[in-house]
């Protein structure tokens, strides 16, 4: 049998003796590494799953919207080596869902070849079949819309275009990589499936409906990875030019208004190219994924920082308590390095156990998390693999953190002089001056009050460690709760403060503003205000943003704009208000002059002073007074929507009357939008729950260790108190009082730190300039403070129970005997 060297055996026995304490530190490292590996692997897996889904359905690299071009242009594009192009018609119409209210839904029609899937942007049939090729009236329905309305293959849908209604039979329910999340436009990223649906139709049918025989208005292009993309895009441009599309612009290659005017006067048609990365749906996913990746770094950082602190304190305590053993080892001839390594070994073991188990559990959970997330989005492909880089990073981090933290205590063994170490250490009495002041101040108090207060200051480093445990628990809970607060605050701001309307009616056609008066006089309508939303490019110096400008009534009772800090701000004729998320993108300060260029049409170019930045939760648009936007459009009757407030719950009669107005395209009910966002938050709440759970575990582990260190260092002192007749209850009271005083220090430090770290987390997670969703800055609520402090104190009171039990159950005779060992 292999004989274990006795110094290793000593390590093992010491570890076993302090198994709960070392186990608690390993648990902290375990959780930190678990979160890192789990979230980061899930992030990588999700990226792989998305890409696999994109690849399987050959999602396009470029979308080129054209005013209209012959299908022959697409044929020419397909001749370019490495290019797979598909020309399609993309148009909006109405879907008549029938029912009592006669509800209208905007349907986005996207064409597909009638006999086979296209080469680019294919769809995945979830239920039913692809078109039969019989030239019948068949459609495929995107799953979000189908799910909301419970549509199945074989059902019929009535489509309405230019007041002509047609019935189509559903052949299948499909998924599309372009519609993992339904995004209507960058300004309306989250339409509800109640009001917006995507349907796929054979090209031939769409040509007839939209009167576009032989024509398409969008080309989707996939480029082989090894090809020169710029060159290919140049070739695409050349083909478009040959087909009378004079100019192709993109986000990065804008056309100035003057050129567009000339284009229109000369009857020149243009195209607009969007790269895959700029698609709103891709941006939304990216934002979501980046939050995920950020979570994978920020939370483990907090855990590992706490683990390093715990290791430091624990090993310091071990070295202190084994001073005589260290002296003995030195006296016997054990080398300094051997002794140092012996104590560093504790940190190594804790690191190995925490990181290896953390990596394994993290990896296993990563697959589950990926699956959960992918299922929420209904992506049919789950790609998971072992990400060795992440695993290695997890192990290295999990090992190096305790190792670094353990270096100082282990190094301190070198300074211990053997002769000195053999003498028992004098018990710490604390700072003499502080103790004298305390003695004076505490004179009127009984001993069971005096002693706990003195003990807090007697070994202040020990007390600080305990307090750091409390503070860390508070920080973790506050960070988690601040997300809850931010969401609550964002929702409250959006739906209670900013949006004062119950529904937004989308209008079509000219002079639509006249409908405001009509709608506001309907029974069941408490108020109505017109809005005019026009796509614009806003420039400041060399920076630009493509967005839309919404004209709203001055002193609007429907839209109560506020600044980032919640102050009310109103539109005025002299200026424009921008969403806060544009502040970094444009870099413009209030008072700067911005250049406004309409993205459609030839009128409306102007300069405006920046009047302020407004807060907006979803999407982002600029605001000006309605009349100013109408003036820019040279149409004082123009409106694209009407904000409506109902008088109580709207009945089907009221809704039907609204839907019956010819210029009403669709209606977005605010409660629907809110419900949809609530549903999408499900995953978020799970993550918050996990954070709270882990924060509690972290706090418990640190506090447990702190109390154990605090009490085990004073075993003899406690035994003396018991020996002289102090009762168990009184001893427990004194320990609890001492811990509560320490908890007060932890709470005092934890609250401002938690607030600061919450803000840091929030800023780190909202650094992307392309973010579609922006949350209110986290102002931690009183509720969160109360929850955090109560949780921390409760954790502390529970965590001290084992230590108190150990003290009251210790055999006085044994302790006395141990004094001589």
């Amino acid at each position, binding site marked *: 049998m292999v004989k274990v060297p*006795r110094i290793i055996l000593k390590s093992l*026995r010491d570890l076993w003796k302090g198994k709960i304490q070392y186990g608690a530190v390993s648990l902290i490292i375990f959780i930190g590494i678990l979160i890192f590996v789990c979230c980061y692997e899930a992030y990588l897996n999700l990226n792989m799953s998305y890409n696999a889904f994109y690849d399987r359905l050959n999602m396009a690299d470029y979308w080129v919207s054209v005013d209209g071009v012959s299908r022959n242009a697409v044929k020419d594009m397909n001749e370019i080596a490495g290019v797979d192009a598909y020309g399609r018609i993309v148009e909006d119409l109405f879907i008549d869902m029938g029912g009592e209210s006669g509800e209208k839904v905007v349907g986005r029609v996207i064409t597909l070849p009638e006999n086979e899937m296209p080469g680019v942007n294919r769809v995945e049939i979830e239920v039913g079949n692809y078109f039969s090729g019989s030239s019948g009236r068949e459609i495929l329905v995107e799953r979000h819309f189908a799910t909301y309305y419970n549509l199945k293959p074989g059902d019929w849908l009535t489509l309405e275009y230019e007041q002509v209604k047609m019935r189509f039979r559903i052949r299948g329910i499909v998924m599309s990589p372009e519609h993992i999340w339904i995004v209507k436009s960058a300004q309306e990223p989250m339409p509800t499936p109640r009001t917006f649906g995507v349907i796929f139709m054979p090209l031939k049918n769409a040509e007839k409906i939209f009167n576009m025989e032989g024509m398409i208005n969008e080309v989707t292009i996939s480029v082989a990875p090894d090809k020169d993309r710029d060159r290919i895009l140049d070739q695409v441009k050349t083909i478009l030019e040959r087909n009378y599309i004079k100019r192709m612009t993109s986000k990065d290659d804008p056309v100035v208004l003057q050129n567009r005017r000339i284009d229109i006067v000369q009857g020149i048609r243009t195209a607009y190219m969007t790269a895959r990365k700029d698609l709103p749906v891709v941006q939304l996913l990216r934002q979501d994924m980046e939050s995920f990746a950020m979570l994978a770094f920020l939370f483990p950082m907090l855990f590992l920082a706490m683990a390093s602190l715990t290791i430091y304190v624990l090993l310091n305590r071990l070295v202190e308590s084994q001073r005589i053993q260290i002296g003995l080892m030195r006296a016997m001839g*054990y080398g300094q390095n051997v002794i140092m390594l012996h104590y560093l070994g504790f940190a190594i073991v804790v690191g190995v156990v925490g990181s290896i188990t953390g990596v394994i559990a993290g990896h296993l959970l990563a697959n589950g998390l990926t699956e959960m997330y992918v299922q929420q989005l209904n992506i049919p492909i789950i790609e998971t693999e072992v990400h060795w880089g992440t695993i290695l990073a997890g192990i290295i981090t999990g090992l190096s953190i305790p190792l670094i933290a353990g270096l100082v205590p282990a190094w301190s063994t070198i300074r211990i*002089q053997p*002769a000195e170490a053999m003498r028992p250490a004098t018990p710490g009495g604390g700072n003499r001056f502080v103790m004298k002041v305390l003695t004076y101040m505490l004179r009127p108090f009984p001993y069971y009050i005096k002693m706990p207060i003195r003990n807090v200051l007697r070994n202040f480093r020990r007390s600080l460690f305990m307090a750091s445990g409390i503070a860390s628990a508070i920080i973790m809970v506050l960070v988690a709760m601040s997300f809850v607060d931010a969401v609550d605050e964002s929702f409250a701001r959006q739906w209670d403060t900013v949006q004062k309307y119950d529904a937004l009616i989308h209008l079509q056609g000219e002079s639509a503003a006249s409908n405001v008066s009509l709608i506001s006089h309907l029974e069941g309508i408490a108020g109505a205000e017109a809005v005019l939303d026009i796509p614009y490019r806003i420039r400041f110096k060399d920076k630009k943003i493509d967005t839309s400008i919404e004209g709203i009534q001055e002193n609007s009772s429907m839209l109560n704009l506020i600044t980032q800090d919640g102050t009310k701000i109103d539109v005025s004729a002299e200026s424009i208000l921008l969403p806060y998320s544009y502040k970094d993108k444009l870099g413009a300060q209030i008072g700067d002059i911005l250049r406004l260029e309409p993205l459609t049409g030839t009128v409306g170019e102007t300069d405006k002073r920046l009047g302020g930045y407004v807060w907006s939760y979803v999407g982002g648009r600029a605001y000006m007074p309605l009349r100013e936007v109408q003036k820019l459009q040279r149409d004082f009757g123009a409106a694209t929507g009407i904000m409506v407030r109902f008088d109580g719950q709207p009945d089907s009669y009221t809704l039907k009357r609204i839907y019956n107005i010819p210029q009403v395209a669709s209606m977005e009910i605010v409660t629907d939008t809110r419900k949809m966002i609530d549903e999408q938050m499900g995953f978020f709440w799970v993550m918050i729950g996990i954070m709270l759970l882990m924060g509690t575990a972290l706090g418990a582990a640190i506090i447990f260790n702190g109390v154990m260190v605090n009490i085990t260092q004073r075993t003899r002192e406690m035994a003396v108190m018991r020996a002289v007749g102090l009762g168990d209850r009184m001893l427990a009271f004194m320990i609890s009082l001492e811990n509560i005083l320490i908890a007060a220090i932890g709470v005092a430090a934890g609250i401002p730190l938690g607030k600061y770290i919450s803000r840091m987390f929030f800023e780190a997670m909202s650094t992307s300039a392309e973010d579609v969703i922006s949350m209110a800055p986290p102002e931690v609520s009183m509720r969160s403070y109360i929850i955090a402090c109560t949780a921390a104190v409760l954790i502390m009171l529970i965590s001290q129970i084992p230590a108190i039990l150990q003290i009251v159950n210790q055999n006085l005779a044994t302790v006395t005997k141990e004094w*001589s060992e």
Partner: protein
Amino acid sequence: MKPSVRLDKVTKIYRMDHTEVVALRDVSLEVFPGEFIVLLGPSGSGKTTLLNLIGGLDVPTSGLVEVNDINVSKMSRSQLTEYRRRQIGFIFQFFNLIPTLNARENVEFAAELAKNPMPPEALLKEVGLDQRMDHFPGELSGGENQRVAIARALATDPPVILCDEPTGSLDFETGKRIFKLLRTLNQSSHKTIIVVTHNAPVGAIADRLIRMRDGQIVEITENEHPLDPDRLEW
């Protein structure tokens, strides 16, 4: 005969903040191989300091400490470690056993440091603990613990054994047995043994009794007929 331990004008001064404490002042002493020496003196007389200097646990402020022709006073830390490993065995008042190791393992803990260690089981048998080898310190009596400490001190087969108040925390009878054991080992293995104590009657069992006071040797008494420890009374 060449001395096993030689101290020449050894002074040890401890500096604490702004005060200096002279623990040893110009101490000179020679101890010969196989001698059993008792260092006697009141608390603070410098006897433990003297023992620590011989044992290489501390270095003198001035003077020479030589053990078996090795100059201990000028050694580096690593040389001192090696010196302690090869030349010295320590026995302490409070045993200083490792509580997480049993008796056998405590002895093995030291034996593993030596190139040619003494067999731990044989040593434990020699100190009368052959039936208690697998017991942990907490399960042994004070006397038994000190026996384990003695076995541990012998494990590396050092020529010099230093005992700092070895019976200070033991009762009279147990203390006598420990001295008996030390004397027997001294006679059977010819090891040099230096015992520090403040218990005057113990001096009677030594070959030489050295009395210390205020950091100086005040008297050296040779016992021509050392007392059998069994006959000790105090």
